[in-house]
């Protein structure tokens, strides 16, 4: 057992657990953050993406111990922000959500991308979300949604 302390969606939390536990499981099971999805469990699909100190990470391959002292934001935390609202609207407007299983992870990827580059080109958008698999949409409407969000959300990123 290790005692791990970190900031989760803006709140200070602490948990006693084996530091090798997958961050994904801890978020889902100990903190009931079900918006963090498991699509592959091997760091390849991005469904489990979260922000660690503002940078996207696949929580299925992050050991809990690595969270020590960091700030973690999941879709549940991110969905309270103005940036999220712009992304949500843009995703809806562009038809970027089908089954939705990849969507929270896509939102996190979009945030991480726009955070570093607030007016990305199409190629940069495609590259920015290429760590997130979507089997439903063929990605075009997602790429358009991210471009639209960058446009609509001028000044937010």
């Amino acid at each position, binding site marked *: 057992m290790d005692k791990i302390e970190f900031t989760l969606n803006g709140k200070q939390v602490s948990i006693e657990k084996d530091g090798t536990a997958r961050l994904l499981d801890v978020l*889902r099971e100990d903190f*009931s*953050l*079900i*918006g*963090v*999805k*498991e*699509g*592959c*469990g*091997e760091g*390849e*699909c991005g*469904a489990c993406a979260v922000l660690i100190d503002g940078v996207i990470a696949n929580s299925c391959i992050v050991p809990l111990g690595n969270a020590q002292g960091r700030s973690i934001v*999941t*879709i*549940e935390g991110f*969905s309270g922000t103005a940036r*999220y609202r712009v*992304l*949500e609207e843009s*995703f*809806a*407007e*562009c*038809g970027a*959500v*089908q*089954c*939705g*299983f*990849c*969507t*929270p992870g896509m*939102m996190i990827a979009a945030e991480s991308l726009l955070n570093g580059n607030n007016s990305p080109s*199409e*190629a940069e*958008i*495609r*590259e920015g*979300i*290429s*760590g*997130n*698999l*979507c*089997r*439903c*949409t*063929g*990605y*075009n*409407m*997602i*790429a358009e949604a991210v471009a639209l969000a960058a446009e609509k959300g001028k000044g937010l990123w």
Partner: protein
Amino acid sequence: MRKDISRSIGKVDNREKSSGSAEYINDRSWEGEVHYALTLRSSIVKGKIINITFPSAREDVHIVDYRDVPGKNFVSILEDDWPVFAEDRVSYLGEPILLLCGPDRTVLEEYRSRIVVDYEEESPFLTLQDAVEKSDPIVSYTIDTGDYAGASEKAARTVKETFETGRQEQVYIEPQGVVAEYTEEGVVLTGSFQCPYYVKNAVINTLGWSGEKVRVIQAVTGGAFGGKEEFPSLISCQVAVASVKLKKTIKLIYNRHEDMEVTTKRHPSLISYEAALDGDNRILGVKMDVKLDGGATTGLSAVVLQRAMIASCGVYHFPAVLATGGVYLTNTVPSGAFRGFGAPQTFFAIEMFMNHLAAKVGEDPVAFKTKHLAKKGDATSTGGIYRDDILMAQMIEEVKKMSGYAEKYRLYSEKGNPRGIGMSLFLHGCGFTGSGEADHIKAKVYLERDEEGRVHILVSNVDMGQGFKTTMMKVVAHSLDIPLDQVVFNNPDTKYVPDSGPTVASRSTMIVGRLLVEACEKLQKETGPARVEANYSQPDYIKWDQDKMKGDAYPAFSWGVNVVEVEVDRDTWETTLLGAWSVHDVGKAIDDRIIRGQVDGGFLQGIGYGLWEKMELKEGRVQQATVTDYIIATASDFVTVENKLIDNPYALGPFGAKGAGELTLIGGAPAVAAAVEQALGAEVYRIPLVPEYLMELKKNG
């Protein structure tokens, strides 16, 4: 809300899905103690189970196997050959033998790792070729329309080619999962399902219970593509048996690796074509044969085969057709439903065959295809009639304009050019094959107006991402001329919804949507709270003889044209997409943007099928059982698609709509393969077009 129905609206489930609050099966919490289930699987390909040695018993590990099945130990599909749990023999690697259930997954895993199964191995069929050489098909059909023998006698020449297609994995991003709850009234199954009533009927059969005691609820479903058509019936039967035995809630969620190793795949195929051509290079008839690898169980293979054979003429009219086909069993993971359902295999073959024939007779492929296009009033492959307008000629012109096809085709024909452009023409029969809708499905829908005037859609078809909820809510809101927020469509629960059939076969919008329109007409005659129902009846002019495979196989067809442009790297033999264009006739889109979503997603799955998605088995074991090894495209691999829809309303569809879900996948592989052929300057006979194959093609000239 009487506007043009096609005008897009925001989908009703966007918000819950975007914010992460939508509850998929693994996200729900359950009352009482939950036991997890873990599956013990066959570690050999084929043989007898001689003995199973278990570690010493533990209170927190329960074993559930075939001896616990109160009813029949097979999954009720078409044939009774798919065991819920293996009894004394196994017929593929990964076949489920038993479940371990308990509150702690780590304990279950540890326990499972110490179970020893002794087998007496037998020699298996590992490939389709193997099974074809050494066994008979378990099901076979013949389509005989016109007089092929006569045609080939008259022919100036005959040309024969053979084609091969591989397995394809659905890779819905949410893996399979189901939960069984044991309650006073019976057992409740909640899961990631396409077909709640398939699950219900299978569980009734396996438990030997009456229908009232089995309730099935669809959880939010994270993609399916056919993969959640029949497979969920298997795991639902397993957890139902466990739940009844242990009187507990049992939760079974696959991880990705397990999902990719043991769930159903698209059928591998071997397809041969022979064409009889007259002196003017017109096709007098075709002879076609398709062999499908069914994997270890029959499952839905017979119906997949029917679709593959009925597609034998592609979008063309040939005066004579002789099509034969068979399903062969191999000792491999069962093949099953996947968007397109047999059609993608045949369309790859027929479209390549037509390209190759055009080259042989020295004609332009599109011109050669155009002169053979089926027209309204022509006979279908099964001797039915194309009753509705066919707009393919116009659609071809349209896609040429959009893509600059003619110019690029000319340019890329120059020798040594690394680029290529290809066009595919395709159709999809909407609804169940043959008499399926009328004889087997007999869809029923309810529509209910409550005290507050809200109208509830009660059907068993599901939204699995394709936008069915929004689509049906629009159909009802427009029909009744009420605002969308007055319409309620909850996830199907068999306690409340009638059996309106499964969410498959591009039938839901066309058939169930149409029934909802009828129900709306009835509801308008009622005042206040009321419930009305509508039942499917087949138009009398549709006639089908299943034994002879004769007549109208489908009430309507949707049509499509794809163009794909590629570049092939002559060092790595990797193919890069440069452009993709599509024109579809789906009757009338109920929502343009939803259809565009179907087009984009289906097109990419089709291109992936042709280009990247390779799933091989070695000694019966799937070699690409992770998303690292099995390549599905990322955003960087695909290009923006330019799409167009052509309105061609179908009289019996809701607002003119026909099926759209499967159609969009079918043209991807043949279009990309045609483009690769041009880039390579070599003919293609097999998909996927992985670099090793392209290199081999080039080497062998």
